[in-house]
Every structure is written in C-alpha cells, then in structure tokens.
C-alpha cells in the first residue's frame, strides 16, 4: 500500500479567506478522500430569529453573508411580504433588481479574483479586484455603504434613485464593461489558465442532478436552471436567458460566472431604462402568519428560505438553505481523485461561502 499523508486544508488558509477544513487524505499528491469539517463560523442565526423581533431579523438576514447581503435581505423581505400580503410598489421592485444585480457583479468579480489567486495568477487577481472597486463605488453611491447597505426593507426600499444617480450608474457601467472586456479573453483563452482548469473537477450532468448542485455549478454542467426565471422582483419583465456551459469542469463554471457579469450589466441597463416612477415604500402593519417558501437566485445559486410564523412578534421557524450547502456534496465528489495542486481551484469553483453554509 502506498503511504498516505493527511493534510489539514484550512481552517486558516490564504487561498480562501473563509474557514472550512478539509482533511485531505493523500497518496503522494493525489487526493483519495476528503472529509469536510464545518462549524468554524456557526452563529446560530436560525435560533436567534426565533427570539428576535421579525423586523429586526431583517438585519440578521443581511449579516448571514457579507458578500450577498442584498440577496438575503431581498429574500427575507419578499418572504415576509408574501406572508403578510403586501404589494410592493413597482419602482421598488426595479430598484431591488438593480441592487441585486450589482451585488451579483461584485460577488462574481470577487470570485474571479480569488480563482486567479488560487492558481497563482497575481496580476489577474489585482486586475479583477480593481474592476470590482468600480462596482463597489456604484453600490456605495446608490446604497450608501460598501457591504452592509440596509437598503432593502420590508415593504419596499429605503432609498430612491435620482436622475443623476442613474446617470452615474450608466456611466460607471461603461467603465466596468471596458474593464471586463479586457479581462474576459484572459479567462477564456489564456493557455496556462486552460491548462489548469480544463478537465479539472469534473461533474457530469447526471451527477450534478443526483448530488443536488445549484447555480453556476449546475449551469456549468449543462443544467439550465436559474431562479430568476421565476420572475420575482422585476425579473419577470426583463428578458434574459440563463448562461449555460456544457464542459462540466472548472473551466465551464468559470466561464459561466464571467459571462454572467456581462448579463448582469445588460439587466441593470434594461432595468434603468424601464424604471417606473412612483413611491418606493408602503407602510407595514401587523404580524406575519402562515408558511412560505422563497427561492431566489444568489450569485452562488439557489437560495431557499422556509418561513413559518404564528402571528407572534418573532418567527416560529426560519430555515435557511444556502447554495453552498447544496454544493458541498458535489464538491466532495469532485475533490476525490484530484491533484493537491488543483484542490484550491476546485474548492473555489463552486464559490464556497462558508458564512452562508453555517449561518
């Protein structure tokens, strides 16, 4: 029998800033087994929601994850609105769409940078994060803060966009598109990047269904599923098609994300063009009662909320199923048999967000 080495991969590791531990069992440099160990970020949000006021839980939802904070507030607000039967003004729906897409842009750019970093491509990492700063500038200008914006609330949005803000957005989007046009060919054509990603971390379509892959991971394996097609917020009125790649490897998943950046830019432009006038916030009275399931497309995939409220001040149950949790079994499947040098990239290729997983 070959000699086996056990490498503790994480929880503190430079490649990804988040703590997850993989105990990798190696034969020489090939991984024969990977055991994920979670729990380094568990905060007990589901339990906190059962003791806090349901309006304050909104802020808790925002702090499930700092990267997709907008998505969590959006999902939570929509779920509560559905429970209480509130109709959100159309302008607020469009604003929510714009912010959600900005959030997706910054998340995808962040991921692209980390992926470049994982394969040791310093320069590309810096260039993508430089482009990301443009998005953060837009977010800060329109929402008031870089990460925790608090701009979406139950019943609408807290802020409105004026004509000059929209002009600023359009202007910056052009900058961003230029930067992305420079970055895109590097990701799609660079021979050394291809050498590191093509055929690495294979996940066939059948496996993706069986193991419950969602989001870009599933779309990289040829499954055309995008929760935005459900038509929540203003997505029903904006025409778009999900980005699908059929190469089933890290390269495919990478391309899905890069292409989705362009798609997001298009969606924001369409939303700005169609933005209806009117109010952005309706008054909310009463307490939620009943059960609801909310599915939303996060940058990382499908987010599933199950809310149960009994007419009390706080919720009876708030079940958060985040995309990364669903993508963990495919990840374990992909890591088995990979080379040690490819493990960081494969782990990143599902866009792990441990803060979401552990709540």
């Amino acid at each position: 029998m070959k000699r086996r080495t056990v490498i503790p991969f994480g929880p503190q590791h430079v490649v990804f800033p988040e703590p997850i531990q993989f105990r990798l069992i190696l034969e020489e440099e090939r991984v024969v087994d990977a055991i994920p160990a979670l729990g380094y970020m568990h905060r007990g949000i589901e339990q906190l929601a059962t003791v806090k006021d349901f309006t304050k839980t909104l802020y808790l939802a925002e702090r499930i994850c700092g990267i997709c904070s907008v998505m969590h507030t959006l999902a939570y607000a929509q779920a509560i609105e559905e429970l209480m039967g509130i109709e959100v003004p159309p302008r607020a729906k469009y604003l929510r769409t714009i912010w959600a897409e900005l959030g997706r842009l910054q998340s995808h750019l962040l991921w692209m940078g980390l992926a470049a970093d994982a394969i040791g491509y310093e320069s590309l990492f810096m260039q993508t994060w430089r482009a990301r700063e443009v998005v953060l500038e837009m977010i800060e200008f329109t929402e008031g803060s870089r990460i925790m914006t608090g701009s979406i609330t139950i019943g609408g949005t807290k802020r409105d966009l004026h004509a000059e803000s929209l002009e600023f957005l359009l202007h910056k989007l052009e900058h961003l598109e230029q930067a992305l046009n420079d970055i895109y060919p590097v990701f799609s054509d660079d021979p050394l990047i291809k050498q590191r990603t093509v055929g690495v971390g294979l996940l066939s379509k059948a496996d993706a269904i069986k193991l419950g892959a969602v989001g870009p991971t599933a779309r990289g394996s040829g499954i055309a599923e995008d929760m935005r097609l459900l038509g929540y917020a203003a997505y029903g009125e904006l025409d778009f098609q999900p980005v699908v790649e059929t190469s089933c490897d890290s390269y495919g998943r990478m391309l899905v994300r890069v292409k989705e950046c362009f798609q997001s830019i298009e969606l924001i432009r369409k939303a700005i063009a169609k933005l209806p006038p009117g109010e952005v916030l309706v008054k909310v009275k009463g307490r939620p009662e009943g059960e609801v399931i909310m599915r939303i497309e996060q940058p990382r995939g499908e987010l599933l909320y199950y809310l149960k409220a009994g007419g009390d001040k706080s919720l009876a149950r708030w079940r958060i199923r985040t995309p990364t949790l669903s993508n963990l079994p495919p990840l374990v499947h992909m890591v088995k048999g990979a080379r040690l040098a490819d493990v960081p990239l494969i782990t990143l290729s599902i866009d792990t967000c441990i803060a979401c997983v552990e709540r």
Partner: protein
Amino acid sequence: MSYPAGLGIILATFLLAPVVGGLLTGLERKVIARLQGRVGPPLTQPFYDLVKLWHKRPQAANRIQIVYVYAHLFFMVTSLLAFLLGQDLLLILFIFSFATVALILGGLSVDSPYSRIGSQREIIQLVTYEPILVLLVIAYYQVTGSFMVSQARSLEQPLLFTLPLVLISFLPVFIIKVRKSPFDLATQLHEPHQELVKGIITEYSGPYLALIELASWYELVFLLALVSLFWATNWVGGLLLAAIFFFAVTVIDNITPRVTYSWMVKFVWKVGLGLAVVNVAWLYLWK
C-alpha cells in the same frame, strides 16, 4: 590572480553581494507592483524585512533544522565566492546544488505535511533543472576547453554567440531557482498565495527565515552572475544580459499562473533540455 585582487573579491562577496541582492529584490517587488497597478513597497523594503525577522524571538521545530539553514547559507555564499574567484564551474554548480539539498533536508526534518510536500516538490525541481546545468557545463567545456570560469573572460567572442540555445534553456532554470511563477511550486518568499501555505519554508520563523532570505539574495546574485558569464568578454555586455534576464523573469512571473509539477517536468525537459542538446550537438558536428 593577484593576492590583493582575490581579497577584494572575497570582501565584495561578503559585503556587496547582499546589498546588491537585497536592492534587486526590492526593485523586483516594486516592478511587480507597478505592473499590477499598485504603488508597491519602498526599494529598501527587503532590508527592513531582514532586520525585523532577525530580531524576532527564535522558534525552531528542532535543532537539526537550524544546522541545515546555516548549511544552506554557507553553501550559497561559497558557490558565489568560488564563482567570482573564477574557479571550476563543475565544482561551483555542485556546491550550489548542495545548498538546495540542505534546504530540502531542513524541510524534511520537521513533521509538517506542508513542509514535507514542499520538500518533495523541491526535489522534483532539482531533478528537473539539474540536467540542463550539466549540459551547460559540457557546452562551456566544448567552447572554452576548460572548466574554469576565469577562462570565459579571455575568449575572442562572447559565449552567447556559440551557445544561444543554452542560454534560452537556462531561463526556466532561473525561474525555478528564484521561485517565480509559473514554477513557484515548492515555496514563494513574497507571495503568500499557495496551496501549501509556504511549502518548504513553512516551519522556519524569525532569524532562521531571515537567513533563508539572505541566502536567496546571494542566490539571485549568483544566478545573475552565471547569466553574465555568457558575455564575459565585456562587463557592459554581461551586465546588460543579466538585466534583460532579470526583467524578463519579473514580467513572466507576473503574467503566468502556477503550473502543476508534472507539466513543469514535461515542459522543461522537452523544451529546455531539447534546446540545450541541440546546441551541444551542433557544437560537436560543425565546430
């Protein structure tokens, strides 16, 4: 060589080489930062790092590790010294490899998986580039008729004109030795983004890391001196050649991702070794 000149070279090796090596490292970090659109650290940054590391509280996993660090530095300084004194090239490269072996043994002496796997990769790197160095020595002997480094200065035309392909095949060796992307498999000194944390030097800290850093400066100067051997007839030419090499490596580092070791072995043996063999064969058949 006269006695005072030899003494001068010894002094220069001990005093000037680390200064030059440190400044070059600082320059390289600055250039990389500029290529990435950043301001970058000051030119003297490596010296601050060295002083700071030297004054941290020493922590070592075991005693033998410390011995290997000193051995690494000693062999590195010796190889540079022997080179500047115009000694036998074969011997010099032998000592140079021994410096690497000392580092590998140090990495293997601790019970850390990162350090162990880093050492294994360093061994693979050693195996990868060593044949090219041997061919370099053979080609050198064919042209000059001697193994002595001092012989290169008395040639009529620079070595570059007879050994152009050998110089090109030396480029991957240079990249491997200075631990730059795409061949930064075993460790990196200033870029932390690695699946093995720091690879072979993970378990060194404080003053011992400072010694490794110092050795890497000597190494850089030695490798650049080896490059300048290809234009040893004229010191301007040698300096120019070394400068071109230095900037080429810095740029390549910036525009390539890290590759896997199997790809590295294939590439270096196919392209690097191939070019060197062609050059040597050409010398045999036509000269």
